[in-house]
């Protein structure tokens, strides 16, 4: 089976700083991969490379077997693919941000239907119908006509998830989707993500919610200083005796979910 996402030898430098130092990662289709690691270890950068918001300095990313952004020629050089090819591959990916990034001048429904109209060229009523169906999925059908400023953080993040889902991506990327939420609002977002995982969506989740990672993740990848130190099922990764760096990291995240692992 072809992996949904396959990353080989990924290096990302910002000027002198090497933020990703040769990442190899396979993301199996229909599974949840959780990226954990200390602050500054490069989790967001890796996810942003997968969404092509950041262009990797070296290495290759395949999405469903198709190269993302660059093709590697037989002699090892990278050439940039034409923008049409890039957009086609990219359209298989949905992205959810820590700070939601909803468009403030559009209602919840507008945020979800916008790309269906502008990019997919659907008529207004069909786009609105599909957008409404997505809002229903995240439990916000009766908030459709409110603007982001009128929604709670948890509701905004669910709209953002609906916006990404509306384009029917094969892979969903989440960058700390609950980190900017009050604790009592994280649950509703995590529940939506759980449902999505149960539906068989391929997901890559950067999260400090170790409990969520341990219970929903099929694969855990532990990133430290731009390198993938550990990778495996939650049982394998969290089993004692643990890798020293992971132990150190977990000590700093004694949230309720992680406490049960210690």
């Amino acid at each position, binding site marked *: 089976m072809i992996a949904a996402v396959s990353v080989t030898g990924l290096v990302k430098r910002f000027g002198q700083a090497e933020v990703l130092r040769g990442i190899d990662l396979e993301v199996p289709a229909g599974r949840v991969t959780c990226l954990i690691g200390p602050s500054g270890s490069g989790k967001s950068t890796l996810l942003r490379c997968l969404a092509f918001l950041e262009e990797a300095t070296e290495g290759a990313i395949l999405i469903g077997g198709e190269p993302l952004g660059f093709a590697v020629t037989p002699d090892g050089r990278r050439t940039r693919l034409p923008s049409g090819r890039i957009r086609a591959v990219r359209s298989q990916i949905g992205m959810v941000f820590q*700070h939601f990034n909803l468009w*403030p001048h559009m209602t919840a429904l507008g945020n979800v239907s916008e790309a269906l109209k502008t990019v997919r060229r659907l008529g207004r009523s069909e786009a609105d119908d599909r957008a409404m169906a997505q809002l229903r999925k995240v439990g916000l059908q009766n908030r459709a006509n409110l603007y982001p400023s009128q929604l709670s953080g948890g509701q905004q993040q669910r709209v953002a998830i609906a916006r990404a889902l509306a384009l029917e991506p094969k892979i969903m990327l989440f960058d700390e989707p609950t980190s900017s939420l009050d604790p009592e609002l994280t649950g509703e977002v995590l529940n939506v993500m759980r449902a999505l995982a149960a539906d068989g969506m391929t997901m890559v989740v950067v999260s400090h919610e170790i409990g969520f990672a341990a219970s929903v993740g099929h694969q855990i990848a532990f990133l430290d200083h731009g390198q993938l130190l550990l990778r495996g099922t939650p049982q394998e990764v969290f089993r004692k005796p643990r890798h020293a760096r992971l132990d150190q990291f977990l000590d700093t995240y004694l949230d309720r979910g992680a406490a049960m692992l210690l």
Partner: protein
Amino acid sequence: MTFDLGFIAQHLPEVIEAAGTTLMIWAAGAFCGLALGFLVALGRRYGPAPLAVLLGVIVELLRGTPFLVQLFLLYFGGPFIGLSLDPIPAGVLGLTCYAAAYYSEILRAGFDGVPAGHVEAAACVGFSGWQTIRRIILPEMAVLVMPALVNMTILLLKETAVLSIITVPELTMVTSAIGSESYAFVEALFLLALFYWVMVEICGHLGRFAELRLARTGLVAR
């Protein structure tokens, strides 16, 4: 000496024509200036570095010199580089460039006011660059830049008075000429000031109306 506005009645057709010229030049300068200013702001924000630097220098030159001097250089200096223009085209061109410099600075600040994440979100759902500008960046920055754009447009109306210096038959030139002929210079200037003031008020109210419309979309509540 009496304050008598009656003289204007005999010159009404000329005055109306001149007022029309002023409004036409103002509208053309504002419209073309805004369009050019938008392109300049785009070039400075998203264009290649050499273009951005070049545009930056031109904008600084236009903002750093008096409009009067720019007009003189364009009208009297233009022929030396093969650019001989009649007064009205020269006036519109001068006003357009002057306006574009200021508008571009306002719009550039507007571009910077749109959070990068909103643009990234658009890229993630497949928007092209132009679609992002049209559907996300322009509407979001509209609220930020509207007051400054209205302000600049008002200033521009008053700058059209400077065009009299290169013999554009606009309202200031025509009215003051009539005023001196009829020995009613003060009255003429009074009417002139009144005209500019009324136009500025109208423009200001239209601007405020536009701001309210934009505010109602929920943008401002954040």
